[in-house]
């Protein structure tokens, strides 16, 4: 076992035009995606005309072995069809009224992009990026789905790249298009009852029994927030009770297991959409995490989850059954001393740190037995997991430079003490929001980071590079390089397929990327030496 595992992260950003609080959020999100397209076009004199290919999306497949009735699904679950702007939103994109996309912008967009299935009124809703990511409008939020990576540290790097991409697009809206400030927040709630997620995806062998996996994951997910929560001011979905809690997301969960992601949110999500060979793999879709600004919190979130999945796959997951997982999730979150104890079905009462230690001990034991503790990144994740739990048990402030919620709590507590504020003071809610503001001169996370108070795994140069280059060891390499090398010819893309328009051939040439490990630099680099010979390039790819 190692922490090496095929994974990807999704981030939905909060979005706001402060000069017009009534601006339509979907239109603002579309504006951001189109600003990124314009940036790419300006840099490369061209942007790939790639549509998202929804053919292989199966959002209603349930890992427990059934399919949800389409009529019973919440409309937001139907992610296998393109999001279309409503008639009202289309009107907004061409109406030069305050708070709406200006007419010049709409005509510029129309000139830049040809109309296709994913463009609504010439407004692009989806982009496949040169780094292998997807950047798109998800309902009323801009969403960045990172390219597939194989190591937790890489997952962190390409997640952080998404923050840079999103912020740069917002700067472009302001500076090049003159459309005012567009604020982006890497958080998960508006504190008024709405929540938006930061999802994780991990590849697992299909042969693993899903019900057993879910049983082992529930207690882990309910408690891992102590080292990867992002912290939140206010308790309850509407922040009705003053206070500070560990997790952004905890209060929005109502179920232990289920298919939904927008209503009745479950601790273990059952969406069964492998984006790869269905017979061999399942993709664990994790919706319970907080979006982290901090690199170490993200690293621990991915790395420890990967280790727990290895425990499950080897049949060595500890048996820890919470009496009431949803209640425990919220109890843990509501105690920023990280001392709250929760009840187990066997009668034990343990803290989140105690429960995490049981998982840690099992992982350390398995790593030692398999020799995995000599693999550098696996050893590093294990070591950080153990030492973080030890430090949390002594004094959470010991991990203020690595754990997001602790850093935020320490900063807000100091401000609160200095000014004699109660937790319901709007200045503390403002600080909570501004912690995740993606502007480097405004975001409080960045204020701590620039003073060296947040440990970083990657510097700005590495993150900038990941914003334009794909990971080299997964199929994301092929996807990213293909849209960059052949912008005229890649007409469709999804996680597991690419479609090409080849001159002289009447039919679209769809090629499979169903093996997530095929398409790495080592496997396809020589194909890109074909340069502009798109026909030869396509013929060298496996057929769907």
């Amino acid at each position, binding site marked *: 076992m190692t922490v090496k595992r095929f994974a990807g992260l999704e981030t*939905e950003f*909060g*979005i*706001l035009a*402060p000069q017009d*609080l009534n601006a339509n*959020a*979907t239109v603002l999100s579309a504006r951001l995606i189109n600003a990124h397209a314009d940036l790419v076009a300006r840099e490369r004199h061209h942007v790939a005309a790639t549509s998202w290919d929804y053919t292989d999306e199966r959002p209603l497949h349930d890992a427990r072995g059934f399919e949800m009735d389409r009529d019973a699904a919440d409309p*937001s679950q139907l992610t296998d069809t393109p999001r279309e702007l409503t008639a009202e939103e289309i009107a907004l994109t061409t109406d030069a009224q305050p708070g709406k996309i200006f007419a010049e912008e709409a005509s510029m967009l129309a000139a830049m992009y040809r109309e296709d299935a994913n463009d609504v009124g010439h407004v692009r809703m989806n982009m496949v990026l040169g780094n292998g990511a997807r950047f798109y409008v*998800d*309902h*009323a*939020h801009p969403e960045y789905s990172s390219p597939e990576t194989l190591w937790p*540290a890489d997952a962190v790097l390409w997640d952080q790249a998404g923050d840079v991409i999103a912020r740069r697009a917002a700067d472009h809206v302001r500076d090049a298009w003159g459309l005012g400030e567009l604020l982006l927040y890497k958080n998960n*709630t*508006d*504190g*008024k009852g*709405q*929540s*938006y*997620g930061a*999802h994780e995806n991990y590849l697992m062998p299909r042969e693993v029994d899903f019900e057993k996996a879910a049983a082992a994951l529930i207690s882990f997910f309910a408690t891992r927030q102590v080292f990867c929560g992002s912290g939140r001011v206010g308790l309850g979905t509407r922040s009705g009770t003053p206070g500070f809690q560990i997790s952004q997301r905890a209060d929005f969960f109502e179920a232990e297991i289920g298919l939904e992601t*927008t209503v009745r949110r479950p601790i273990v999500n059952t969406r069964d959409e492998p984006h790869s060979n269905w017979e061999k793999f399942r993709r664990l879709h994790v919706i319970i995490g907080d979006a982290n600004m901090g690199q170490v919190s993200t*690293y621990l979130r991915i790395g420890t989850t990967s280790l727990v999945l290895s425990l499950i796959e080897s049949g060595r997951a500890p048996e820890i059954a919470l009496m009431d997982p949803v209640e425990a999730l919220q109890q843990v979150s509501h105690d920023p*001393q990280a001392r709250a104890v929760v009840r187990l079905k066997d009668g034990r009462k343990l803290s989140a740190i105690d429960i995490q230690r049981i998982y840690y001990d099992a992982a350390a034991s398995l790593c030692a037995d398999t020799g995995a503790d000599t693999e*550098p*990144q696996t*050893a*590093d994740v294990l070591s950080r997991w153990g030492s973080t739990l030890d430090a949390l048990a002594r*004094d*959470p*402030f010991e991990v*203020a*430079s690595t754990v997001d919620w602790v850093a935020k709590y*320490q*900063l807000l507590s*100091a*401000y609160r*003490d*200095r000014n004699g504020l109660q937790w319901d003071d*709007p*200045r503390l*809610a*403002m*600080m909570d*929001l*501004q912690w995740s503001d993606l502007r480097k001169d*405004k975001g*409080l996370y960045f*204020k701590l980071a*620039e*003073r*060296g*108070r947040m*440990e*970083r*795994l*990657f*510097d700005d140069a590495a993150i900038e590079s990941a914003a334009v280059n794909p990971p080299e060891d997964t199929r994301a390499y092929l996807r990213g390089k293909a849209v960059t090398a052949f912008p005229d010819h890649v007409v469709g893309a999804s996680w597991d397929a690419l479609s090409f328009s080849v001159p002289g051939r009447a039919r679209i040439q769809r090629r499979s990327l169903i093996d997530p490990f095929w398409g790495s630099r080592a496997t396809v680099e020589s194909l890109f030496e074909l340069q502009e010979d798109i026909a030869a390039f396509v013929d060298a790819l496996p057929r769907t």
Partner: protein
Amino acid sequence: MSQEQIKPQPQKQDEEAVPGVPTPAPASASAQAQVQEVDDLLAEIDGVLETNAEEFVRGFVQKGGQ
């Protein structure tokens, strides 16, 4: 939890890079040079915070998400 003052954690810069393990990026020289007192940091935050926090926070309304 003790109410100690915010202090920077030492960055692990003296360790040799190990392949496969992310190496912490060195803090910038200016960050290292300025080990600011907590009051300085909080004063800076006062200057960075959006003015009229109450109105701003009230106006931060999002639509549902996943």
